[in-house]
């Protein structure tokens, strides 16, 4: 065996705290190693060229690169050795950067640890076997989960690219958060005017199949071949018959149903169409408020409906869709007022959230676009905005910035002045964060042209005094206490992960961070990919994001899907389980433990029962290998021998 080892300096990243020359010198003493060298940047073009030349010149048959994490560059170097004629699995990486040079301060200890890491990789590579991919067919249909602006953009781009798209939205209409906004910053463009036509495009696109008011029940399969079960939730209205005329909503006697679309600013009817531009524009009954469900009698809507669409007996329906890739665009959630006891915890009607104020400003909202405060429906003259209500507050579990609140507060303050010219707005802020194009100019405009008073400091308490709300806080620039008697207080509540985000991640087998936001494959270079191939991210499900960023990610995810689907066949990962039928005793414990049902029983011609791996279904976890009592089923590239060789390299030296 002729192993070549290449030790990377990574500039000073590794060489700064590891004596790379010594690592190379020690490596040359290892049995099997015929060539070892250190190089400034092994991943650079000349670095890779050096590997190829060494393979030819030194007749190497195995290669080890000691550099950064294999999660970073394993694929890069596998391609390099493949180009030089070696099987791509005759390659191992020793992670001497993330796991050694960046975390240890003592050069002697680091160098020794790096030598050991190389020793382990050499032991592993000497036990490696050549593996060959097989190819499988791709089902070129894509599913987009979430019909907000990011999901819609992804769906439209995929559909325009010729793909069949299945769009699943959990609420009764697509549009997401953007459909609720009145205007958008920094142009003060009308939100629904730019979103509405896009929603219509989605509805009318012959390539897009829309499941509104539906949720993902179960996801099975792998990239190219997923089977997804979708739960179509009961609307109690037959949408094939409903024309969206709204007669039912007008006549419904239950007038106190919670309005999810308006975030409870005003009540709605038990049967309702969420908003005038809804897509699909269909009615839906909320059984928690409907008298037919709570009291067992009413039936007004059934009587009034001109097409007989009402069906109180309707049940959830499960449908299955076969698809090849998934774009996740499930958006975000918002903190509730009950998180803020010092601000009244939702007890004061005139302390509201930013999104609620957005609905009050909106012409299709409950006040028809007239700014009227919730308590007495009068026009507020003094409005106080509180930024960072929950954001950047470790004690509330939200240490991060919610990204777009500074901007929407400036927008709402400008709109307040437009609606009520004799009003005065105040903004309590920690910092003004306005790094986007035209954003900083916009916040300045709010202050300079609209006379919005910005007070740098936190609000400690909000309490009622007569008809007013007293906002008490600090002005940290003047070093004084401030008290403002406000008519209306708007809290920019923190952006959090969407309700049920963790549950969804578990169905998708993707990772999520401490806060429930989905984790991308690489924070800089792979921002819309996940570690599960075939699953992509778009929008605020990955972290708080404004509209342009969400739209950008929607398009990016679509382009990733289109490039994935540009091939008819995909290559499978050959690092899957394999059964040695001579050693298998047919106990079939592996069949029971396999998380993917990828192993089945096979009867050989001799009549012997053995386990058989279904190659396309096996995901390569290796649970079967550690289950097998006789070592008959081995996960390729992570066999018992290969892993024990690494253990021995550490322990028996």
């Amino acid at each position, binding site marked *: 065996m002729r192993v070549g080892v290449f030790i990377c300096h990574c500039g000073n990243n590794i060489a700064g705290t590891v004596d790379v020359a010594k690592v190379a010198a020690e490596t040359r003493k290892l049995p099997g190693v015929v060539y070892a060298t250190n190089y400034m940047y092994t991943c650079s073009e000349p670095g890779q060229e050096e590997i190829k030349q060494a393979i030819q010149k030194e007749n190497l048959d195995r290669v080890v690169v000691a550099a950064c994490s294999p999660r970073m560059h394993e694929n890069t170097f596998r391609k390099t050795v493949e180009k030089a004629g070696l099987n791509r699995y005759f390659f191992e990486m020793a992670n001497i950067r993330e796991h050694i040079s960046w975390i240890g301060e003592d050069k002697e200890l680091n160098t020794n640890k790096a030598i050991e890491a190389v020793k382990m990789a050499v032991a592993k590579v000497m036990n490696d076997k050549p593996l060959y991919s097989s190819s499988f067919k791709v089902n070129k249909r894509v599913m987009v989960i979430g019909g907000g602006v990011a999901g819609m953009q992804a769906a439209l781009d995929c559909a325009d690219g010729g793909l069949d798209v299945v769009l699943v939205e959990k609420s009764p209409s697509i549009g997401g958060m953007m459909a609720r906004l009145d205007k958008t910053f920094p142009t003060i463009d009308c939100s629904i005017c730019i979103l509405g036509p896009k929603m219509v495009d989605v509805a009318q696109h012959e390539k897009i199949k829309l499941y509104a008011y539906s949720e993902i029940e179960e996801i099975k399969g792998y990239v190219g071949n997923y089977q997804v079960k979708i739960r179509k939730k009961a609307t109690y209205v037959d949408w094939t018959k409903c024309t969206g005329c709204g007669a039912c909503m007008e006549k419904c006697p239950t007038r106190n149903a919670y309005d999810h679309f308006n975030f409870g600013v005003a009540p709605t009817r038990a049967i309702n169409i969420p908003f005038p531009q809804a897509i699909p524009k269909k009615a839906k009954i909320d059984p928690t408020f409907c008298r037919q469900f709570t009291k067992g009698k009413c039936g007004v809507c059934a009587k009034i409906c001109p097409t007989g669409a009402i069906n109180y007996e309707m049940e959830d329906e499960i449908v299955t869709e076969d698809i090849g890739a998934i774009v996740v665009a499930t958006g975000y959630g918002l903190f509730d007022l009950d998180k803020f006891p010092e601000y009244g915890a939702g007890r004061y009607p005139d302390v509201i959230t930013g999104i609620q104020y957005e609905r009050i400003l909106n012409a299709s909202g409950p006040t028809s676009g007239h700014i009227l405060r919730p308590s007495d429906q009068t026009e507020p003259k003094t409005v106080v905005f509180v930024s960072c209500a929950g954001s950047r507050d470790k004690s509330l579990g939200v240490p991060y910035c919610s990204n777009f609140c500074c901007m929407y507060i400036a927008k709402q303050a400008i709109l307040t002045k437009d609606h009520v010219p004799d009003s005065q707005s105040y903004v309590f802020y920690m910092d003004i964060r306005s790094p986007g194009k035209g954003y900083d100019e916009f916040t300045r405009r709010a202050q300079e042209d609209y006379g919005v008073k910005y007070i740098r400091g936190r609000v400690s308490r909000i309490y009622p005094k007569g008809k007013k709300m007293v906002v008490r806080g600090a002005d940290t620039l003047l070093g004084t206490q401030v008290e403002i008697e406000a008519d209306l207080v708007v809290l920019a509540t923190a952006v959090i992960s969407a309700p049920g985000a963790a549950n969804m991640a578990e169905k998708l087998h993707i990772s999520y961070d401490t806060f429930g936001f989905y984790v991308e494959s690489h924070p800089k270079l792979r921002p819309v990919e996940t570690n599960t191939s075939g699953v992509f991210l778009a929008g605020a499900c990955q972290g708080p994001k404004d509209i342009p960023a969400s739209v950008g990610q929607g398009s990016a995810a679509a382009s990733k899907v289109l490039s994935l689907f540009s091939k008819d066949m995909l290559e499978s990962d050959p*690092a899957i389980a394999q059964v040695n039928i001579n050693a298998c005793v047919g106990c079939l414990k592996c069949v029971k433990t396999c998380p993917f049902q990828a192993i089945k029983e096979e009867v050989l011609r001799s009549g012997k029962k053995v386990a058989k791996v279904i190659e396309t279904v096996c995901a390569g976890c290796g649970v079967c290998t550690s289950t097998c009592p006789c070592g008959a089923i081995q996960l390729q590239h992570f066999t018992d021998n290969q892993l024990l060789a690494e253990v021995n390299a550490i322990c*028996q030296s």
Partner: protein
Amino acid sequence: MSVVAEKELRVVGFLCNWCSYGGADTAGVARFKQPTDLRIIRVPCSGRVDPLFVVKALLTGADGVLVSGCHPRDCHYTDGNFYARRRLEMLKRLLPFIGIDERRFHYTWVSASEGQKWQQVVAGFTNRLHQLGPLHAKKENEG
């Protein structure tokens, strides 16, 4: 000698590729300083870790073994880490029967975003082992 005598102990870590190996990478990228004792073996899933690997390491020279996977319910392979948890918990209880202090073995869950938690896990476990001292002291003295 594979470890630097007096300063280090021999610690073997089995890390799943998707969460904990990524978490260790994240810790590295963030330059969260850690003791140098740990030697990391990458496995696809904590469910791939055969308890006998742990025993083999402890019997042949390791002073401690650490296994880390994805958080329960967040496994890249659906429920590989549940199998790991069951096996490793059993292993932990059996270790005293082969004369090994169960504190020399630790399993935990660290996600790819939890760099800081990884630092704490490594520091905590290494510290615990240093308090216990080397497992193979006699052998080392002879050698």
